[in-house]
């Protein structure tokens, strides 16, 4: 095992992490920027080699390149101490020592179980977008999207642009809430232009509110979905279903490090500092509020982690507050309707790793009891999927995180065990 040393380590190369890395590196710090995805950009700017990116993404990627920050494709699998990360660099596990960690781990989708959701062809909403950006061919494919919040717009638009037949887009929130949100949010000219463009691209699709998937059907793959629109059920034959119940901050690494949470997000102060000294957090892992807020928070976190004494934080205090307010509006507007929980029948799969069905769980149990008696959340994904669902369905705390966060291939561990005492390198 090699040891590396950097002044600042940024985990996550999405809008928040890119901005944190560029800012800290341009202040003269040696910065290591880690992301498990093959290319930098995070969720919104996920791309294939040679794909075109929006100008603000290109600008940020250029800034990172020019700043001297080192980007590596790697997964942080453990944090033995707040100043030490164990990192899997594509099959080789190294220890990285650092005085400052910036967590920019983004969000995951809240994926709630419903009958038939394990069928191939059923993905998340952002999940389908991610597969599309990875090269999935959807031309002529019949697609239903069922989710909540602004993410439905760009996903419907990119599917339509790629030639898919997006048959229906279902928003679970009631129309009244969305309309109120829209008139406020769309006062921001950028958001307005985007929303109009996306909606125009997906103009053929039927857009519904108060609507969700009741069940998915098929044999070896998805064949049809039954949807509920304003309480009336309808069946639609389709090839792909993107279904999710919004986004939730991704906090497993923060929890492993012992950072305090506020609700489901990492708790941070005005300088993006977490409850643990030497650890900062920025972007959607501190609350879902979009990519513009992520870039801004990344800049604050990167500057504070590089030791600017809070100057950047006070310069951006107002804009930062606006981002947080926007996040609150999102959460209020797109709060989950109870029907998303009650549609969950006993035979629906809850824990997809350990094959535990909803019917095996007594909602009166604690999370610990459920784990002991059914192995729910004990599988390879560590409850990333069902832990979030259990919080939504039963109000349970997120499951305890055990290292390694993502099981590195056995070969990497073998090398690590035989190599433990090799000298420090940087």
């Amino acid at each position: 095992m090699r040891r590396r040393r950097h002044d600042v380590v940024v985990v996550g190369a999405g809008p928040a992490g890119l901005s944190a890395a560029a800012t800290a590196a341009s202040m003269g710090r040696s910065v290591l920027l880690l992301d498990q995805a093959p290319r930098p950009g995070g969720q919104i700017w996920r791309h294939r080699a040679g794909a075109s990116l929006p100008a603000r993404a290109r600008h940020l990627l250029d800034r990172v390149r020019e700043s001297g920050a080192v980007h590596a494709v790697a997964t942080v699998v453990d944090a033995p101490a707040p100043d030490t990360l164990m990192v899997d660099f594509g099959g080789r596990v190294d220890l990285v020592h650092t005085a400052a960690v910036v967590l920019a781990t983004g969000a995951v989708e809240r994926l709630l179980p419903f009958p038939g959701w394990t069928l191939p062809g059923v993905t998340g909403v952002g999940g389908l977008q991610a597969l599309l950006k990875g090269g999935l061919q959807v031309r002529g494919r019949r697609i239903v999207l069922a989710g909540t919040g602004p993410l439905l717009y760009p996903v419907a638009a990119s599917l339509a642009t790629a030639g898919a037949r997006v048959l229906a887009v279902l928003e679970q929130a009631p129309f009244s809430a969305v309309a109120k949100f829209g008139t406020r949010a769309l006062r921001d000219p950028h958001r307005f232009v985007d929303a109009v463009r996306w909606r125009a691209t997906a103009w053929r699709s039927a857009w519904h509110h108060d609507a969700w998937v009741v069940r998915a059907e098929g044999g070896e793959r998805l064949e049809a979905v039954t949807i509920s629109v304003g309480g009336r059920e309808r069946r639609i034959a389709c090839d792909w279903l993107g279904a999710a119940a919004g986004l939730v901050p991704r906090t497993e690494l923060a929890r492993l490090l012992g950072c305090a949470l506020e609700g489901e997000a990492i708790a941070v102060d005005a300088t993006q500092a977490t409850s643990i000294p030497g650890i900062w957090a920025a972007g959607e892992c501190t609350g879902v509020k979009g990519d513009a807020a992520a870039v801004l928070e990344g800049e604050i976190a990167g500057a504070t982690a590089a030791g600017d004494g809070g100057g950047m934080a006070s310069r951006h205090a107002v804009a930062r507050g606006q981002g947080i307010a926007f996040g609150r509006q999102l959460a209020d507007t797109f709060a989950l309707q109870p029907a998303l929980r009650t549609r969950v029948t006993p035979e629906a799969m809850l824990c997809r790793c350990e094959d535990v069905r909803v019917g095996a769980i007594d909602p009166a149990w604690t999370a610990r009891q459920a784990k002991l008696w059914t192995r729910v959340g004990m599988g390879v994904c560590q409850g990333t999927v069902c832990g979030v669902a259990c919080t939504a369905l039963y109000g349970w705390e997120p499951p305890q995180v055990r290292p390694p966060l993502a099981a590195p291939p056995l070969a990497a561990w073998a090398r690590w065990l035989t190599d433990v005492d090799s000298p420090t390198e940087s």
Partner: protein
Amino acid sequence: MSGDVTIHLDGVPRRVPAGVTLAAALCNLEHLAFRRDLGGGPRAPLCGMGTCFECRLSVDGVAGTRACLIEVHEGMRVELTR
């Protein structure tokens, strides 16, 4: 990125566009059962971003590789998890 590469699916060579993720490549080939659950049911990519592990299979001899996190390369050997 242009051109195709050859990947070997359970030993069978298949041409796929270069630069796509293995998850997308397999879906495009209609290989949708990435793994089987305890009841024998097919499982396929869900999250697309490396967190759900539903897309895991054996790649170049490494079991448990997440297909959504890697791009195809020439000569890639893929064993569908049974």
